[in-house]
């Protein structure tokens, strides 16, 4: 029978199917960070349970870490935020006590867990991958079955190497055609969420396919799958192809030699079969997608950069009108205003969505030889890992950002969720390459507009939301 990619990954990891509809699924790789793991380790210790398979687990600190070079060099003991320090120290202590491999704070391989995982080849095609973090959906870009879990499940995986799951339904999102200039994976993600809503993918694993997806790099596919959870789907997936294999070949933890050949043979089968049945399918014309900007407090509140904030008259019912009115009040916007009239105070380029080398290159291409507008009060560029940072510096991207007036920081989650000191002040408006524009997400009272790295850079230059072509017309596009 023709199978979907999700069906194949599920079947290859099915320990047992039970009569009540649940199943035991085997987990190949478990990534850990400091925020969602302490209570899981504590649970193991209380129950006197050990790890099922030590080697399945890889930990890295990312959410709380300082992105200031001086604070990083001073080490954990000098971190001014005592509460963050305790949580980071607890990860170190737990990894030591349970013999879990941990990438240390100041190792060049440290980074956001979802940047580090693929970069190290700790995540590979065909694996089941979990992490106590909803953006684990990122790894579906590799053709891996990957999703976020809660802390009870972190403990469950540590103790049993399995999860109790119900099979999700299959959702096929085909993006056809060729993307326009300046349109990126982030815009595809926002366009899809704008169309199906933040609950549109609930209960589904979404497979992204079509010519526009095939043309994306691995970085772009990671951006797209990362945002699957913002459409409600725990998993995003992209079939394995040469782009996938080229990305993983030579990664530190990837197989090599005969082992690679055996792996490649299996990985080559990781696509949906012709005629495989999907429970839901949509087709989107990729050539018609414009650069997107969110205007509200949910990722589905999104419009083209050439568009406008909706009006009350556009809303289908009273609940939607109340939602719009609340979002506009929080965001300090008026109904019907042009997106290009919205003026950010801050720029954030980073997060597990958009902090990889390709993202930094796209932002730098816009910023090269230009200056951040004087109305922008803060502008941070936070690379996703030490290796991304080193690569960017080797290419001179750090100089472009610094010369433009931006801050070049150390890797971490940073202002995506503001668990460290990087945050918005109440009322501050940010053009952000992160994934969530929820109330208070980037700092209490902060206002987030989600955009691609190129669009964040364009906003930095013009001081308002603008297409890249507009921001670069002075010197010619990509000068």
């Amino acid at each position, binding site marked *: 029978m023709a199978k979907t990619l999700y069906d194949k990954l599920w079947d290859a990891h099915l320990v047992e199917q039970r009569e009540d509809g649940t199943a035991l699924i085997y987990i190949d790789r478990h990534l850990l960070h400091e925020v969602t793991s302490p209570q899981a380790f504590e649970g193991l210790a209380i129950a006197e349970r050990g790890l099922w398979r030590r*080697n399945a687990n890889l930990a890295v600190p990312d959410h709380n870490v300082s992105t200031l070079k001086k604070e990083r060099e001073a080490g954990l003991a000098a971190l001014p935020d005592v509460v963050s320090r305790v*949580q980071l120290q607890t990860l170190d202590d737990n990894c030591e006590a349970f013999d879990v491999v941990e990438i240390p704070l100041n190792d060049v391989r440290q980074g956001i867990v979802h940047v580090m995982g693929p970069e190290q080849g700790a995540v*590979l095609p065909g694996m089941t991958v979990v992490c106590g*973090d*909803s953006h684990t959906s990122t790894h579906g870009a590799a053709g891996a079955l990957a999703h976020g879990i809660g802390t009870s499940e972190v403990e469950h995986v540590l103790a049993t190497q399995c999860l109790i799951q119900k099979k999700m339904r299959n959702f096929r999102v085909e993006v056809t055609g060729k993307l326009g200039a300046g349109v990126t994976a982030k815009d595809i993600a926002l366009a899809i969420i704008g169309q199906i809503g933040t609950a549109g993918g609930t209960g589904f694993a979404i497979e992204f396919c079509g010519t526009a997806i095939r043309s994306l790099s691995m970085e772009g596919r990671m951006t797209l799958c990362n945002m699957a*959870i913002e459409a409600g789907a725990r998993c995003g997936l992209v079939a394995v192809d040469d782009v996938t294999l080229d990305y993983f070949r030579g990664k530190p933890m990837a197989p090599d030699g005969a*082992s690679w050949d055996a792996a490649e043979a299996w990985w080559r089968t990781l696509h949906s079969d012709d005629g495989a049945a999907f429970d839901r399918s949509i087709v989107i014309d990729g050539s018609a997608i414009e650069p997107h900007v969110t205007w509200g407090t*949910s990722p589905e509140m999104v419009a083209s950069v050439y568009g406008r904030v909706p009006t009350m008259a556009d809303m289908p019912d009273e609940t939607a009108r109340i939602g719009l009115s609340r979002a506009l009040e929080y965001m300090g916007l008026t109904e019907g205003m042009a997106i290009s009239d919205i003026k950010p105070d801050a720029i954030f380029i980073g997060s597990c969505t958009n902090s990889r080398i390709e993202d930094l290159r796209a932002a730098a291409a816009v910023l090269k030889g230009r200056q951040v507008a004087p109305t922008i009060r803060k502008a941070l560029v936070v690379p996703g890992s030490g290796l991304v940072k080193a690569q960017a510096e080797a290419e001179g991207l750090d100089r472009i950002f610094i010369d433009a007036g931006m801050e070049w920081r150390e890797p971490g989650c940073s202002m995506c969720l503001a668990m460290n000191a990087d945050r918005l002040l109440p009322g501050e408006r940010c053009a952000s390459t992160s994934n*969530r524009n929820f109330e208070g997400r980037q700092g209490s009272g902060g206002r987030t507009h989600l955009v691609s790295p190129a669009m964040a850079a364009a906003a930095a230059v013009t001081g308002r939301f603008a297409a890249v072509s507009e921001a670069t017309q002075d010197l010619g596009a990509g000068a």
Partner: protein
Amino acid sequence: MKAFITHQGLVAPMDRANVDTDLMIPKQFLKSIKRSGFGPNLFDELRYLDEGIPNADNSQRPLNPDFPLNMPRYQGASILLARENFGCGSSREHAAWAMDDFGFRAVIAPSFADIFRSNALKNGILPVTLSSEQVDELFEALYAEAGYSLTVDLQACTVSLPNDEAWSFEVDPFRRNCLLKGLDDIGITLERADAIKAFEVQHRNRFPWVFEDIAL
């Protein structure tokens, strides 16, 4: 895990769609390494007029008088009535811990986000899915009558209204059994340790690279 069999309690409203887990428990409180103590910071940004700080004395903070959970008529509420896509966003189980610590035993909504639903069920909190029309009707009744209570019966899978009407709802049979008996998932899975070991042997033969040492 504490068992859930039947629960009668006062209902409080959370009358907005897409309530995300950032709203339920803001990021600064995720720095705690404990499972308990999150209740005073549940819905922190809606509940208080100042900014919440970890380990602060929340009893001294200015309350938002317009937020339902601060209103006298909803004091002691243990059932939350909510709208579509409740619990979307982050996988933080802290959201479920905060609901539990506050005293909520059930949430009634037309739909839930997957990860929050799973986290709630693992913490003895029952997510009850009713139709949008039923939820509308409950909101209306709740606003009309102070002290509005409901009974959620997991044995019968029903929500009983004050007028003795009973609406049925569906729960995954496995989760229902765990909740009724207060069973711990890990204990249940470890009873199948032999099956996991047998699977692991064939999985290792098939995909040996997955099991390679990941030493740095």
